[in-house]
């Protein structure tokens, strides 16, 4: 093949190039085909058509172009390949194909399959059987089979979220070959060491192959996340990958349980190192939501770090000795703890002051921390329970106080305490209040800046003991411990030697207190993880695929056995994923925190070894490029022929114009349509709403009784015109509202005449009215039955009103007292007649009516406006007038002044609705003016 690395798949076709001169000759002879047109008046045309010199053959460059196209097509058909792969398959025995399909093979699995396919097709050509084994599959049947069967098996295989088990695969191959020496051993590897990898390969090569091909990945090595830990201000991530030359930085993304991106970070690998670290900086609150951490590029099962509940926000239970007194929250022992921890933890409070009830209840809710502020002795049963909980990993945080100081033999303290408290800087003390000392080295508070303004006036003291210093997390300047802690089982007891409120020190009101509590909370464990107890066997909940996707658990995963105390290593039986249930689960990750990826050491094969990298490598199939070039040449040729044939001139008539118009119109339409589509935020009915808001409207309820509704409309019309004439209020047209559907909040007053003929409004409508009244609207109920009422029997509309009111939340009512604002809101009134004269008007009883009945104030404060008014006087009929201003209904008795008073009553009601108790203040004006000296 000389110097040019070019191979042809079908070299025979190259003989087609011989035909080029013939093509050239034909092309030269063929002029461009003319456009054929039928034309009847040919005789006339013949007279004017001079014999014209049409070129008998096309120009030479056009011919050259066409020859080039023909040559390109011939070359493309001969399937040239640049940098072809050598074919070196030994035909002396079966092809043994071993493929790593562990987690690391997921990113370039397709390339691996392609490489294996090439090998299998070579085996088919050479007619040798193929024995195929996948190192991560649990079972391998490596029996030599025909190439087509092997291909089927290859295509059915998929990468597994597990480590390769090379030893088992090689054993399977050994068993399948049964002594037959293989021809070629091809191993498509991920290049990472496994426990028995080198030993297994040694056994494989010992089979005596004619030659060995090792095919490794060409792309970057995949990354495995090995550990995450929650630091004080960032999430620390540890990772491992195959060591490479240069240092590299790998972006990672933290996602929440729904897969949303919530934070990003980077992992840095030094050159030549197989371990890297990185961090994701995010606020503590956000870090609580993290459910998994993904490597951005080339995601694999190991590139995902699943995070379970133990990583989450802690649940903190708060118990204090005294009943919470809402009147003085700043003196409540839990107030500062509550404020300090609520951003970082879920707080639960004791429901009962009775410790015997509250402690079991709180433990049942499985808090990570229980904070007890100044609790002396515990009931014995509960103390045992609490101790058990601490043994299981709970963290008990206690604050001192008078009760603790007085308690005898309290076992739930980290150090033995002296009875009584020590007072510093008091009247009987020589000592000044003590500031904090620097935190000791091993203390969790180490690193926090020590505040100099925090002083301690009073504390409980620990009995000196040998391990007191070791148990001290913080101490005062004089060396007495301020915070002590002791481990109990898996849990811990932390004692603050001061109170949780500011009585003994100003620590709780300093910002430092928040930092200290946060550290304590971060140190705590989440108790009661999935399953409740630690010796549970957890079913698979969601499992990782090799590509790092979390999928519902499949059949062949076994439950995770936690009884050994330690989380078992992920393997074929326990693929990485989440185990447990939706409520609580344990995350099982592929890599443990101490594992590192090492390169696979391939032993000496004892046979010629060729190494290749995945993919076609440099082999480049020129066929598509050549075809593309030929197509391009054909396009150019077509354009040239079109131009020579006069197509452009032909097109330049009206078709081009039409096409241009269409294109421009479409473009313009797009431009115009786009902003129009954005501005679609108006809703149907907006215009109505704006109309109603523009002007004050009175409203009446459409009862469904046409007669009543007509009177309501006419009545409110009459009142509106009266209001417009006499007052500053010019109401708009009265509006009939359907209380089932219409928006009610636009109207200050809704007039609701009762009618027995009308259908009863639905529950939903009544509750809408209720909401309207609660939100500040008022309803004027009118039973219109004063005339029927005189007999004493309850009339129909009243019964209807009772039915409606039974669904409403109605305050106590009273007839309008003589000093109510309603009597003074515009006119001075003492009666509220309608069509009938003497029915009372009921309003919400003023709260202070009893107490202040005797007060000499001329008007009651009447805070707020009565949300309900009830009359039986048939206001609307008295107000009703037609378009010409004629009164429609006579009053009973027929007295013109009664109608006038009815209007005045309406005006007062409306003014009362709109101005509230403003008028009741106005009555003070004389006194105020007098006081001002006028």
């Amino acid at each position: 093949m000389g110097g040019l690395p070019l191979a042809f798949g079908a070299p025979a076709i190259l003989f087609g190039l011989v035909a080029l001169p013939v093509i050239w000759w034909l092309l030269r002879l063929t002029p461009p085909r003319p456009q054929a047109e039928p034309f009847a008046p040919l005789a006339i045309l013949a007279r004017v058509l001079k014999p014209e010199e049409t070129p008998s053959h096309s120009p030479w460059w056009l011919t050259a172009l066409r020859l080039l196209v023909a040559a390109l097509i011939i070359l493309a058909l001969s399937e040239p390949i640049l940098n072809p792969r050598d074919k070196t398959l030994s035909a002396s025995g079966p092809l043994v194909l071993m493929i790593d399909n562990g987690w690391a093979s997921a990113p370039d699995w397709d390339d691996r399959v392609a490489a294996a396919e090439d090998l299998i097709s070579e085996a088919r050509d050479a007619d040798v059987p193929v024995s195929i084994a996948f190192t991560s599959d649990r079972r391998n049947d490596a029996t030599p089979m025909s190439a087509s069967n092997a291909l089927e098996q290859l295509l059915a295989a998929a990468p597994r979220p597990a480590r390769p088990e090379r030893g088992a695969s090689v054993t399977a191959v050994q068993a399948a070959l049964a002594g037959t020496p293989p021809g070629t051993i091809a191993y498509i590897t991920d290049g990472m060491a496994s426990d028995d990898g080198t030993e297994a390969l040694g056994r494989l090569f010992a089979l005596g192959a004619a030659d060995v091909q090792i095919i490794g990945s060409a792309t970057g090595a995949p990354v495995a996340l090995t550990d995450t830990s929650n630091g004080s201000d960032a999430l620390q991530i540890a990772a491992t990958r195959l060591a490479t030359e240069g240092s590299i930085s790998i972006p990672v993304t933290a996602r929440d349980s729904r897969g949303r991106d919530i934070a990003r970070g980077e992992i840095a690998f030094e050159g030549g190192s197989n371990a890297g670290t990185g961090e994701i900086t995010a606020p503590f609150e956000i870090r609580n939501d993290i459910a998994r951490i993904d490597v951005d590029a080339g995601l694999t099962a190991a590139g995902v770090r699943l995070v379970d509940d133990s990583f989450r926000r802690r649940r903190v239970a708060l118990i204090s000795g005294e009943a919470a007194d809402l009147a003085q929250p700043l003196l409540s022992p839990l107030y500062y703890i509550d404020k300090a921890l609520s951003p970082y933890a879920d707080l639960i409070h004791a429901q009962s002051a009775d410790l015997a009830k509250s402690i079991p209840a709180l433990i049942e809710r499985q808090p990570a921390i229980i904070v007890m502020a100044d609790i002396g002795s515990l009931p014995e049963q509960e103390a045992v329970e609490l101790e058990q909980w601490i043994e299981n990993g709970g963290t008990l945080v206690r604050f001192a106080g008078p009760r603790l100081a007085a308690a005898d033999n309290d076992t739930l303290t980290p150090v033995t305490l002296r009875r009584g408290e020590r007072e510093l800087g008091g009247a009987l003390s020589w000592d000044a209040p003590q500031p904090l000392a620097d935190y000791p080295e091993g203390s969790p508070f180490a690193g926090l800046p020590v505040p100099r303004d925090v002083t301690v006036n009073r504390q409980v003291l620990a009995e000196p003991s040998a391990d007191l210093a070791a148990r001290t997390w913080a101490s005062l300047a004089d060396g007495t411990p301020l915070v002590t802690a002791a481990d109990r089982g898996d849990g811990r007891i932390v004692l603050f030697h001061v109170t949780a409120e500011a009585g003994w020190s100003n620590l709780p009101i300093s910002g430092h207190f928040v930092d200290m509590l946060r550290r304590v909370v971060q140190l705590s464990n989440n108790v009661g993880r999935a399953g409740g107890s630690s010796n549970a066997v957890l079913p698979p909940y969601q499992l990782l695929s090799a590509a790092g996707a979390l999928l519902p658990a499949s059949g062949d995963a076994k439950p995770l056995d936690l009884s050994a105390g330690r989380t078992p290593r992920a393997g074929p039986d326990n693929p990485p994923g989440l185990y447990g249930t939706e409520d609580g689960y344990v995350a099982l990750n592929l890599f443990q925190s101490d594992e590192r990826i090492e390169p696979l050491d391939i032993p000496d094969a004892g046979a010629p070894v060729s190494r290749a990298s995945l993919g076609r490598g440099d082999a480049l199939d020129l066929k598509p490029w050549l075809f593309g070039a030929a197509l391009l040449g054909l396009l150019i040729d077509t354009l040239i022929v079109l131009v020579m044939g006069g197509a452009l001139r032909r097109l330049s008539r009206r078709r081009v114009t039409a096409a241009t118009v269409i294109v421009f119109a479409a473009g313009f339409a797009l431009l115009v349509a786009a902003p129009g589509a954005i501005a679609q935020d108006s809703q149907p009915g907006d215009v109505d709403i704006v109309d109603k808001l523009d002007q004050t409207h009175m409203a009446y309820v459409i009862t469904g009784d046409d007669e009543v509704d007509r009177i309501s409309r006419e009545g409110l019309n009459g009142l509106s015109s009266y209001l417009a004439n006499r007052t500053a209020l010019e109401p708009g047209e009265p509006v009939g509202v359907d209380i089932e559907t219409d928006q009610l909040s636009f109207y200050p007053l809704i007039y609701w005449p009762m009618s027995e003929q009308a259908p009863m409004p639905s529950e939903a409508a009544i509750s809408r009215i209720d909401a309207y009244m609660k939100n500040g609207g008022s309803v004027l109920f009118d039973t219109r039955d004063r005339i029927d009422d005189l007999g004493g029997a309850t009339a129909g509309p009243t019964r209807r009103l009772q039915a409606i009111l039974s669904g409403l939340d109605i305050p106590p009512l009273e007839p309008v007292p003589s000093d109510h604002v309603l009597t003074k809101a515009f006119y001075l009134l003492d009666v509220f007649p309608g069509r009938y004269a003497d029915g009372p008007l009921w309003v919400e009883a003023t709260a202070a009516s009893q107490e202040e009945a005797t007060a000499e104030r001329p008007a009651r404060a009447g805070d707020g406006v009565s949300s309900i008014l009830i009359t039986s006087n048939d206001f609307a009929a008295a107000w009703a007038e037609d378009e010409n201003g004629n009164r429609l209904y006579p009053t009973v008795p027929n007295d013109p002044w009664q109608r006038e008073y009815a209007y005045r009553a309406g005006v007062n009601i409306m003014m009362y609705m709109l101005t509230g108790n403003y008028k009741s203040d106005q009555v003070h004006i004389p006194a105020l003016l007098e006081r001002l000296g006028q």
Partner: protein
Amino acid sequence: MASIGRLIDPTPRLDVLARARMRASLLPDCLAEARRVANTVIAGWHGRRKRGIGETFWQFRPYVDGEAQSRIDWRRSARDDHLYVRDREWEAAHTVWLWADLSPSMHYQSDLAIASKESRALVLMLAIAELLSRSGERIGCPGVMEPVSSRSAAERLAVALSHASLEGGMPDLTHVGRMSDVVLISDFLDEEASLERTIAPAAQRGVRGHAVEIHDPAEERFPYSGRTEFRDPETGQKLVAGRAETIAEDYRRAWQARRVAMSEAIRRKGWSFLAHGTDRLASEALATLHGHLSGLPTTGGERS
């Protein structure tokens, strides 16, 4: 790149059966269209306007001694002392010979035209036939149908056309009577001498004639460009123009000159000449032709 013009109905000449079937399917359409067009023009067409033999009432006139007493209209005469005779309107028929050229050159339609020339010619012919038959004229077609006077003459002409061929060049007008009218509808693209030969003897006998030239707008305007091969649909002769747009001007001039010469020659014989392009509506030509047939007094004697 589609060609501008195309041959409509390109049937082989020998395929008579298919041709006839296609003609039959084409004709009812044309006839329907002819009826519609005729309806738009019929208003204002008022019979002979003179007394004579006929069926419809024309006038009462005083009885003149010597007339047959049976002609007296007694009902009218009983109303006063005079005797009246009922006159009827003269309804004598005139013979009009219609002929349309349906040779292959007529089967042509360009993109600029509404219909093919043949379709347009048939529409015009049948529309005139409809108009004339409605007013009681006798209609014939030389070589196809003897003159008939019938209300359904247009249908009968259509049926006759579907069985006959009008491809044989200009018609034989030797049998056409002296006082008849002849309407020739064609593209007149045959050699000019044949037209002369047809018209001249008839015109000498006093036959009044109307020539309607149907042309396609593409034939008049010559909108071709680029390398174009022109083919005569009748003879199959071909001409290749290297750049058709260069000869467009010359062609248009020649076309106009030929038309002027032809129309002059026809008018000189006392015939009327009407040029009609297929991009115009058929009713335009129909109205003009209608005017020529009814209004323009050329030879006289029809109206006394």
